[in-house]
């Protein structure tokens, strides 16, 4: 039965690729179309990932593919008054904001902007026309379509998304915020593709938010490629706060050159089905690669974080810290892998995954893997699944705190370790606030949505404290 869904969906996509070829290819460069063709072949051979594949063992896509998705491959990038659709409610977050509506960049003035410091920000589709050499040089170089079926699918159908180019020695003052909005009457299947190139000794902060404006079923399969050249500094924040009908598969590929520093932070507050794949390739000495994650899930939400750090060069450091609190029948999967290749001596790699289960129905699967071929390394990993520390609880109670407050404080402190890693003050305060609200059971996804559509279906996901 399940295999039928995937086969049907696969056949449909392959057919669409043929009939919609004109639209899909658009103005893509010949190089991009070559990559596209290769990716399509991979998708033809491998299809959708199944639970038989190790990295998808606990995450089953097949039920999601049973929806009649609407596809539209026509270029929908256009000029709109964005404020009418959406305003970010982090008021004091001063950013260059870019908005994607159903996978296409919408803009006020021009699809591609050159900032005063020379940074180019805008639509990838447009960038393929205006800067074909730049795109050809980087696109598809980090996204491993041979290993990741969903990345292959995205590459085969890639059309638009965010494009950023930061020239050498440029420090982008304000963070660049990408707001990814899904607003559709019908169930949609979207595949945005982002490309971020950060030149030598340049630095950039990227804030990436996913929102849905309607409660319709949506499936978003994103690929982000980030190239950090020598000495570059990249901070990437990803906020996921979507409705329970939405499915997200997100790939973030980081390619790091010498002395570069990447810090990625994925915070999942809500979402029906979320799979985050983070892959960092450390291709130069002296790199730092830091990966933080926080997931607070309940009802029957499913979140899967898969990390893959590939140390190809000596003398670099990587760090992974993923923490989660699981309520109701939520399920969380963590599969982290650190690969230290033969020549990557003096590598330091750390990996940690901590989970708190609040109910007996919640389930955590964690696989922190190390694969090490070099001897002069310091690698460690740890994983815990458990409850709040009874000793700490006793201490707090003995100080006169009620059980409810004590529990909330401990959970907030547990999540705080990840939140504190956010270096933008306004964003950190906002996330801290959201996490606190979330843990107190006050946050609903409607709060994030400016439409306040008064949906009949109550969409608040309360953590039921009586269960604690």
């Amino acid at each position, binding site marked *: 039965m399940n295999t039928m869904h995937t086969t049907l969906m696969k056949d449909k996509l392959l057919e669409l690729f043929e009939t919609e070829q004109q639209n899909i290819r658009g103005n893509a460069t010949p190089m991009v179309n070559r990559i596209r063709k290769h990716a399509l072949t991979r998708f033809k051979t491998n299809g959708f990932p199944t639970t038989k594949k*190790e990295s998808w063992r606990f995450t089953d896509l097949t039920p999601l593919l049973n929806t009649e998705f609407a596809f539209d491959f026509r270029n929908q990038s256009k000029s709109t008054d964005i404020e009418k659709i959406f305003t970010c409610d982090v008021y004091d977050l001063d950013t260059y904001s870019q908005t994607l509506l159903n996978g296409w960049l919408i803009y006020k003035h021009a699809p591609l902007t050159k900032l005063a410091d020379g940074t180019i920000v805008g639509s990838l589709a447009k960038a393929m026309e205006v800067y074909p050499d730049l795109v050809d040089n980087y696109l598809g170089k980090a996204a491993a379509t041979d290993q990741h079926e969903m990345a292959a699918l995205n590459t085969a159908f890639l059309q638009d998304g965010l494009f950023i180019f930061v020239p050498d020695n440029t420090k982008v003052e304000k963070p660049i915020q990408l707001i990814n909005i899904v607003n559709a009457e019908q169930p949609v299947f979207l595949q945005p593709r982002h490309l971020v190139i950060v030149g030598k000794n340049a630095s950039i902060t990227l804030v990436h938010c996913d929102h849905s404006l309607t409660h319709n079923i949506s499936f978003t399969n994103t690929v982000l490629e980030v190239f950090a050249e020598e000495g570059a500094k990249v901070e990437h924040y990803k906020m996921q706060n979507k409705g329970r009908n939405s499915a997200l598969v997100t790939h973030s590929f980081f390619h790091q050159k010498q002395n570069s520093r990447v810090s990625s932070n994925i915070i999942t507050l809500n979402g029906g089905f979320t799979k985050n794949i983070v892959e960092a390739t450390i291709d130069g000495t002296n790199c730092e690669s830091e990966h933080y994650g926080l997931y607070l899930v309940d009802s029957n939400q499913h979140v899967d974080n898969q990390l893959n750090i590939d140390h190809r060069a000596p003398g670099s450091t990587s760090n992974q810290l993923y923490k989660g609190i699981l309520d109701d029948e939520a399920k969380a999967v963590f599969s982290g892998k650190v690969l230290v290749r*033969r020549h990557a*001596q003096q590598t330091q790699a750390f990996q940690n995954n901590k*989970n708190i*289960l*609040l*109910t*007996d*129905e*919640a*389930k*955590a*699967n*964690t*696989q*922190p*893997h*190390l*694969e*090490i*071929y*070099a*001897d*002069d*390394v*310091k*690698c*460690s*990993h*740890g*994983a*815990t*699944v*458990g*409850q709040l520390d009874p000793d700490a609880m006793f201490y707090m109670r003995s100080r006169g705190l009620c059980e409810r407050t004590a529990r909330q404080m401990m959970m907030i402190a547990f999540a705080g370790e990840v939140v504190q890693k956010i270096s933008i003050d306004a964003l950190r305060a906002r996330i801290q606030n959201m996490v606190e609200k979330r843990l107190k059971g006050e946050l609903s996804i409607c709060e994030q949505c400016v439409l306040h559509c008064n949906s009949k279906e109550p969409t608040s996901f309360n953590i039921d404290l009586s269960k604690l």
Partner: protein
Amino acid sequence: MADKNNQILEEVTGSDYKYGFYTDIEMDQAPPGLTEDTIRFISAKKNEPQFMLDFRLKAFRHWKTLEEPKWAHVDYPPIKYQDLIYYSAPRKRPKYDSLDEVDPELLETFEKLGIPLDEQKMLAGVAVDAVMDSVSVGSTFKKTLAEHGVIFCSFSEALQKHPELIKKYMGKVVPHTDNFFAALNSAVFSDGSFAYIPKGVRCPLELSTYFRINAANTGQFERTLIVAEEGSYVSYMEGCTAPIRDENQLHAAIVEIIAHKNAEVKYSTVQNWWPGDKQGKGGVYNFVTKRGICEGENAKISWTQVETGSAITWKYPSLILKGDNSTGEFYSVAVTNNKQQADTGTKMIHLGKNTKSTIISKGISGGKSNNSYRGLVKTTRNAENARNFSQCDSLLLGDQCGAHTFPYLDVGNRSSIVEHEATTSKISEDQLFYCLQRGIDMEGAIGLIVNGYAKEVLSKLPMEFAVEAQKLLSISLEGSVG
């Protein structure tokens, strides 16, 4: 210093296998190949009851539907199952009244291995059931054991004398459908050991079995079954060495342990089969399924293993903690050298309430070897207050080897606590410096550090074994330990 260091590592990882000898005893063999006829031949040879033959055939039919697993982090040429000989037994099979009647050549073999068959060793309190190419050839201390009602004999003997026990327990922990190698073993197993400890008995001796693979081209398929009745205790030791043979030898064993209410079973293994030469030629393929079940309340099973041999090790001694308050332990030292590959670890399945498990795994890799820990800790919905602690450390001796850790944690209820931690590093320069500065030479220093590193596990071994285990470590890490 680095040069000296390298030189010592070279010596350490480059030493020859010390237990390489081959005993020339006439063999009684089945023709190569695996068909239902082979199985009937084995079964008939051993004069087995009908239920046993049915079990074998069922397993064989299931095996034919399976594919060899490929997920382990090991690499080897495909095994030609049809070219193997599935049965080989020493032709002379006398009943010994005293040691004088034993084939002197065999005694010499045992002498080289240091098997305590002689009077002196008897006083050491060890009962030995030595398995030489699948058939039991010597047994001691039967009398003492019999007085306590303990049954300890070869699997074939148990089939003749206690078929009801075999029928009741065989295949209950590792069913013939469990995996490829378990199915193969279930179909063709030649012999093994059987131990039964009656209710309330504390086994007065440490039971010990020595396995050896001898003839070229024969797979050794033993089957061990240990049943500990309510309130009983037994410590069981299994030790292995194999002579140098040029062709790879397949070893696919099954060990099943059943511990009833309040029973305790301690299972210790020292495995030192031929690991192949420095080029990776030859060596034993060790594909073993070991599993125990804590059937009743408060039962306890512990696995302790020192793995220094075999070209390829594929082995996950597992425990099912079914009874409430039952305890599982796994202590392991795995040393790989030259081109050895080991993919080993454990599975702890928590089903009962308040069940506890501890996993301590120490991997040491040298030469061009690969050493992986792969383990699963699972707590189900009903396993309230389950507790697990796992620690898996790896030590790398050289820049050509690999050390990997693949833990899986599946937690299905809120009251259980599961912790896993692991580190990978080389021998600490600081520790080396400290030892050298105290006048200990480089060899001694490495030995001291490695020994200290493995101590936590070695200390869990029974006395007699601990000595042998240390010897094996010193052979694997020649010149540095002692």
